[in-house]
């Protein structure tokens, strides 16, 4: 029996070793939230235009609920993921060992939208009214906004669709300028019908999307991380610097994944993403998270009571020089 068990164990180990040997070291996975969307234009371009391949990478995108991006990472269902900086700081401060291998969006794109016809004049007017809120990895953003203005709305969990707000199912809607905001415009809502509360105006203009992996993965695969970061940044550079060449490619890619997309929206998104990626950075250093921005964001989050402590800058951000 023992021999049999040993034999079977040996077979299992051998099989595992064989499987491990068969896996190409440069084959990696990256979680991109919800659906394939323009939010990930840089990665789409890097994928579609063979940039990842050029760096010797084979990248597979893993789709899922954007609120569960970190969970997917820690569950080992993906090698890399895209997280908001506040989310990552919160996770790191909470003891989760994740690292930032490239900061993608340095500016702030978050907004709360309300219809002027609803009578909401200022953020505080949302108090007690139905407001879309985020949860999971993104909840910290909604919490930050409400904490900043110190009010409590009637929270309605907000999905990825704009239709609930379009049909006036909620009074305030959490949106990104380059994405949901324009989707609403494309549903027939006029700009002047909306009241826009920018997070940046509320002192919550935190850096947003960054590329993350677990610290352990990073320690073991620094070279791989560097290649992935560089290739992804090159894809982003291509996307926002040559938008007209990228639009069709991005639209086709998104449609290929059976998600809706159109040229007008991608054009709009690239225009505002470019703004956000280069925000406050005249000499834009691709992938760089400036320590000053990091500390400012952390301090603000701590002031609002959203994180217990401020993680060391170098613990989280590994820079772009690797």
């Amino acid at each position, binding site marked *: 029996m023992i021999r049999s068990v040993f034999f079977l164990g040996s077979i299992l180990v051998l099989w595992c070793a064989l499987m491990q040997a068969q896996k190409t070291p440069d084959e990696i996975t990256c979680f991109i939230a919800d659906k394939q969307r323009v939010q990930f234009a840089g990665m789409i371009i890097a994928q579609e235009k063979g940039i990842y391949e050029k760096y010797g990478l084979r990248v597979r995108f893993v789709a*899922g*609920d954007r609120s*569960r991006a970190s969970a997917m990472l820690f569950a080992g269902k993906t090698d890399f993921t895209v997280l908001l900086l506040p989310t990552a700081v919160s996770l790191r401060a909470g003891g989760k060992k994740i690292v930032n291998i490239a900061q993608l969006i340095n500016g702030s794109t978050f907004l709360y939208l309300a219809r002027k016809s609803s009578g909401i004049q200022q953020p505080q007017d949302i108090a007690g009214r*139905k407001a879309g809120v985020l949860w999971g990895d993104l909840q910290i953003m909604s919490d930050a906004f409400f904490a900043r203005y110190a009010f409590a709305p009637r929270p*309605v*969990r*907000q*999905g*990825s*669709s704009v*239709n*609930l707000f*379009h*049909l*006036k*199912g*909620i009074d305030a809607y959490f949106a990104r300028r380059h994405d949901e905001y324009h989707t609403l*415009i*494309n*549903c*027939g809502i006029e700009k002047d019908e909306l009241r826009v509360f920018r997070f940046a105006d509320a002192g919550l203009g935190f850096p947003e999307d960054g590329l993350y992996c677990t610290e352990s993965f990073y320690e073991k695969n620094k070279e791989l991380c560097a290649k992935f970061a560089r290739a992804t940044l090159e894809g982003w550079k291509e996307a926002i610097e040559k938008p007209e060449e990228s639009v069709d490619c991005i639209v086709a890619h998104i*449609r290929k994944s*059976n998600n*809706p*997309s*159109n*040229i*007008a*929206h991608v*054009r*709009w998104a690239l225009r505002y993403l470019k703004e956000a990626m280069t925000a406050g950075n005249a000499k834009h250093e691709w992938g760089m998270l400036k320590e000053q921005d990091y500390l400012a964001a952390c301090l603000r989050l701590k002031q609002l009571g959203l994180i217990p402590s401020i993680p060391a800058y170098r613990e989280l951000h590994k820079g772009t020089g690797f």
Partner: protein
Amino acid sequence: MIQFIKNRSLAFKMVLFICAAVLCIFMVIFLYSYNHAKNIITRNLETNAALIAQKTVGNVRNLLSSIEKIPINLSEQLSERQYSDSELLPLLHSMMRRNPEIFGIAVAYDPYMYSRGEYYHSPYVYRQGGSILSSYLGSEEYDYPLMDWFQISRELDTTYWTEPYFDENGGGVFMTTFSAPFYRTINGKKVFCGVVTADVSLEGLIAAISRIKVYETGYCFVVSRTGTIAAHPLREAIMNESMFSLAEEKNYPDMRKLGHLMQSGTSGKSTFEYRNLKTGKLSWFYYASVKGNGWTAGVLYPVEELMGDVTRLSRFVLLLAIAGALLLVVIISYIAQSITRPIRSLAQASKQIAGGDFNHEVRLLRRKDEVGDLNHSFIRMQHKLKSYIEDLKKTTAEMQKIESELQIAHDIQMSIIPKLFPPFPERTDLDLFGTLIPVKEVGGDLYDFFFIDETRLVLAIGDVSGKGVPASLFMAVTRTLLRARFTRNAKASDIVRIVNDDLCKENTQKMFVTFFLAILNVATGELEYCNAGHNPPYIIGANGIRELEAFHGYPLGIQADKPYKSARERMRKGETIVLFTDGITEAENKQFEFFEEEKLLKVLAEHAEDTAQQLTKAILDGVNAFTMMHQQSDDITLLVMKYLGDGRGETAKSAVFKYSILVKQNIDELIKLQGELDSLFTAWHITQETVNDYQLVFEELMTNIIYYAFNDEAEHFIVIRINYEDGVIITRIEDDGVEFNPLNAEDPGIPTSIRGVKPGGLGIFLCKKILDTIEYRRTDGKNILTFTKANI
């Protein structure tokens, strides 16, 4: 442009204007008919479009309404009581079997509503590969409470048709889901419990609207309440594009407005032009709302095809019009050419004739229209013109001859009038200027002046009745007679009388001349004048202007043998006599007013100190200023003389003159001598009366000597010495004849007639009476006769 057209030929203008007018008329008719046809087609189209749109709406409505009732019925059942899965699943399977158009049915509970320990609970029955299968929805990856079909029904408490989506698991088709909420009453309160959903494929709808043909390239489509395309023949537009994204991408602001109209639940038409997704051609939209779910059906009409017939017809008509216009151009050009060819020919002929070629042959046209008339008239005109020009040539030649003769006459007339000024440059005792401005080439006025001896200056001015050649000839005769008849000792009245008599002879034309003749002794300033009906001259003196007002008879040429007298006037140094004709005083201005003496006197007064020439100019300027260059009506003649002599007295009486002459003893010599004496005495400022008396005495004494002092045939000389001392003429006559004392002759007394007196007696008697002293003596065989005569 206008100038360009103006410079074109008549044919060009005819073609241009007629064609332009015809084309304008045609364009108006064409546009009217085109618009009319377009309106008719548009009206028909709208009716047709509305029908198609309503049909599509009906299709959609039928599809949706057939689905809606199933979830609604089930939700009502679930609201009444809770079904266990073992009850529900067979029911759902049964529904699926009865409703093949439904792809799947789910009953999704609100978290923890089915059971307290269960967050997700959603039995789901669906089709796959011809089978009907069951499963449960809900997981961390598929958090259905966040799905529109659940969340919107819950939050809005209503049924809801989702936006179209692509279902990967259900066979790769476009789907939409209908959800109906159900509730439960807990503690008397209606509490949201969940939704019942039915998934339905849009492929049938897509296929149905794709089959609807709207002409060749038009099509139908359906948009959701967000404006997203839910059904469209172009599959890639479904779910991806909305009315608003297309409006933004294609930059069609009107399309965004149309999107809003379609969202508003109304029906209508949008006439903005939009390039459709399939062909890129211009199209019109018609739309109608689907009641119940906020979706809208649209019909897109390709303008080009709609208007295809009209456009084709219009093109054909336009081609016809162009062909017609070209034909019209050809016809009008031909007509215009046929009309204008002879006109051009006539124009060419006109140029030739205008250039002097009156023999240019103009072709006679055998036509009876207006052009033919013009041709005939032109030829007649050419002949008449030729004849006229020939006559004119002759007349012109004659006229030129006459003009030439008149010019010659003018020159001659002017040549007989002294016009070289100053006429006596060596003289300092007078300043004389005259001018004659005839109203025609030749005139009837005259003036003249000349010295008849050293001191006597004749001044004459006249105005012949009438004008022109006859008057000029009469003037010339008068002037010639004046000069011819003048003798050294003649008085003005005598000359006037003689000239009058001469002019009256053979004066069949009954012409006459007003005449003023004056003889001025420049040495004494004595002026003798005779005025025969002429304007009285003026003398400008230190004490003002005085008129020589005396008249002495009719104008010359009227009545013969008429005696004329004369008057005397003394001119002082610096005085100016102004002789003029009525051309001055009767000069007319445009108002037919005369210049008159009053204005003349004013000019004379203002220019009293002027020289003769200056005064003449001033008078003429005054006349010109008055007439304002109005046509001159009469000859204008002026003769002005300023007397600058000292007068007698100062020089004549204080001087001593001696004169000696040797004469032959014949009577002819005596006459010659007397002439010379006249000049001598004039130079000595001897008065005419004294001269007349002296000449009488001298002639008497000399005649006696010549006839009686020599009794042989030999030639003898008589020596005459005349001294003028202290105003007395002292004459000494010596001859070598036989002794003869004329003073011894008897005194005959006063005779009744001079003709009956013998030589010697009465003559000597007169001599003694006339002379102051006379004495005779015989010395050295010579008779010496000495006599004196004082100058009076």
